[in-house]
């Protein structure tokens, strides 16, 4: 056995370890420290608002394209005979955050936010209603 072949790699490894002691740590001290989410991160959905109402016109393209079948839309007719989403629900337990809904939307009514803390105590709390999804200002 060649001592050089045995000890050199160990020393090299220790050098890297030693070097990290003096570098900024990679580990995030969550929840004391918050991660910086990338702009294209696909987290909780938000319904975009324009002129003080949801942009969604209940065209049903997002529930149609959704591979997880987690979106429920029910259209309603408002006083001026226009179409709006009377019900808009996303079941976050089923959602796979693929972003197809955003891609399919013809009126830019839905986007995905950086919100990723979706834990809850009850199953029903994972079903996000329209009110909870409307973008916060």
């Amino acid at each position, binding site marked *: 056995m060649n001592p050089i072949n045995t000890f050199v790699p160990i020393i090299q490894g220790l050098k890297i370890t030693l070097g990290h002691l003096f570098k900024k740590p990679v580990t995030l001290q969550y929840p004391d420290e918050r991660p910086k989410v990338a702009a294209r991160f696909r987290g909780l959905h938000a319904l975009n608002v324009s002129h003080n109402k949801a942009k969604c*016109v*209940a*065209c*049903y*393209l997002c529930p*149609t394209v959704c591979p997880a079948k987690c979106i429920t839309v029910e*259209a*309603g*007719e408002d006083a001026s*005979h*226009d*179409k709006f989403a009377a019900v808009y629900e996303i079941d976050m337990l089923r959602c796979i955050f693929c972003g197809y809904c955003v891609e399919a939307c*013809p*009126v830019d009514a839905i986007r995905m936010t950086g919100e990723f803390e979706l834990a809850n105590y009850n199953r029903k709390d994972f079903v996000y209603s329209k009110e909870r999804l409307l973008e916060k200002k």
Partner: protein
Amino acid sequence: MVNLTIDDKQVTAPKTATIYEAAKLNGINIPILCHDKKLKPFGACRMCLVEVEQMKGRQIPACTTPVTEGMIIRTSTPDIVKARKMVLELLLLNHPIDCPVCDKAGDCDLQNLTYEYKVNANRFTDEKFHHEIDYNNPLIERDMNRCVLCGKCARICDEIVSFGALTFISRGIETKIGCEFDEALNCEFCGSCVSVCPVGSLLARPFKFKARFWSLTKQKTICGYCGTGCNLTLGVKDNKVLTTIYDENQGFHNGQLCCRGRFGYQFINSEKRLTKPLVRKNGNLVEAGWDEALDLVAARLKGAGAAAAAIATARLTNEELVLFKQLMETAGSNNYDHSAGYAHAALTEGFASSFGVAASPSSILDIQKSELLLVIKTDAYETHPVVGFEINMAVKNKGVLLKILSDKSGKLSKLPDAKTLIHTPGTETTIINSLAKVILDNKLADASAALIPGYDELEKALADFTPEAVSAQCGLSAVEIKQLASAYAKADKALIIFPVGQAYPGHTAALANAIANLALLAGKLGKEGSGVLCLSEKNNSQGAVDMGFQTADGLNANQILDGCASKTIKTLLIAGENPMVSYPDHAKVAAALDRLEFLVVSEIFLTETAAMADVVLPVCSFAEKEGTFTATDRRVQHIKPAIKKTAQSRSDFEILGALIKKLGGIAPTAPASVFAEIASSVPGYAGMSYVSLGEEGQFATVAVKPAFVVPQAPLAKSETGKLALVIGSALYHNGTLSQYGEGPMHVCPEGYVELSRADAAALNFAENDLLTVSSAGGSMVLKARISSRIPQGVVFAPYHFGSNPVNQIWNGAAVTWVTLTK
């Protein structure tokens, strides 16, 4: 047949075909927007441009150009694709492209073609239209901003529906489809225009924003209203029937439907439906379990014998009617009937004695093949609107002569060259006898007639029916009768059509005999496009007749009610009928049901009759069960469930089977096995099975053994100073079921009394006045409708409505004499 080449393919096509039809026949698809196979070629959209080599490569419309021998056609050269793209670009120039909020998306011809031809950008710019959207009626929304001016709506309304509500108005770029004077749409709301609209200009409002087209499951079935037997496609989502879907290849009627068929489906998923069995305890109906309810019924039926009776609606399937018979026989009773007993006497007694078979010898398909149609009562259009469309097409497209004998004029009277003879109400039989007399006297009778049994007796019996003798009584001149008789006799092919039903007590067995005599005398039977067609009222009326759901040794519906009143009948089973509203003489029905010991009603809704029952069983609608319906022309059609049974409801088939088992009998397990039994035992149904019925259905054969039967013509009585009330069917309704369909109720929500302008002026009544209508039997309040179609001295009232049932003043007479006061 001519030979031609389409896209390098050698094909043959009929001489009369257009290029489009020839291509379609040979599996080559040419895009269209304005063409419909039911309508005459129009050539408005220019999507179907093709190149014909013989025409020096010019682009010509395929939908209007007839084929010729040796034509060499190309349907998709780069030049044609370019031209079609241009057409789409120009259409999209003014189209709002609001597909996300347009209900047509997914089923839109313009959208599909835009996608197919990849029209992603537009080289032109122009302003969009800003037409006002017509929301004035609850059934059809008209958004002319989306219109591509194909004209299909206007053409179908004219060519098939013959209403003419829509047409092109204005000129040039401002051209649009509009109603008269650009006002709101107010028509008969059959929705034909909605069905053919290639874009989202015309939409069904009851379905507005309910679901996307692609998310619907399409289930083909048969309409559950009248006896025409129209095929229907139901659009289902989440176990709910949300709409009816147009399919131009469905049924003899090519997908055409009437108001109730297209818009009257909401009763299937109505919130008013019964969900659980109800049992009367301490005077109140309370919810109970199925076992409890069925045990109660079975205990009453066990050994009941003739003290038990049954009345069924002709909306049950053939299989259910057979099972119902079996149940009553197990209980030891042969008292069962349908349709108030008298409603189909024209078939069961009239045709049975004249033709030896209780069915019409002709079919609906004969209408367009005929040369002369004789319609008894313009109500044939109201009772069977899709048969009415066939008459419209026969008259308008095929030049068939239309003669009408009626107590009032109606929509059919407005057809080109239609001749309506308006007679005194209740004298139909007399007039038909007189027509036969004219044929005999003028030697117009067919040579075969003298050989038919009963000829001599008929000749004798008709002696008193010379036109001169009957003219005063009937309110027609002798000349009119003679002209009609000779026109009928001289026509090569002539078809007599008359509706029957609970609202037409005057259309009796005698009338059917008289009509049969007339057809036999003139030799009009056994030829295509010729004969007699009796329009049975409900979707399975003919089936109920065929299944023999009434026996000569049992009581009929009227006798059953008498039996209830005299307490000889103690237990009555009513399936789907609502005698409190639809049977004559409200007081009599109420008293009879009141005196019953035990009333069982199986119903979809808690109707006026069900509310009186001791046990109410919730049953499912036609959309939830399997079975067969026999249409008026004996077309047997198979229905399959579109949705699962709602709540705890069960089909009549299951209920009757369970009761038979409880009584110790052996109940068949599936409708198919009962149908096998029907096929082997019912005359004319031999060889049928669910598989052989397929989607088109099969005609049960009608073997006619003709005989002349002397009809008893009722003497028309009149009362001076009173008006003749005739009961009938409203266009938007059929029986009492359509009251639970939202569409028909939007258009015609309540009963009314229709009277002539002359009478209204004389009595000083205005439209919508509340009038007290009094007959010898009672009085009631109805809204006045004043119309020009009613002759002086006659008033008309429809019979469908539970909110103001006309049977309060009507005791089943063909003509009721009434006075009107404000």
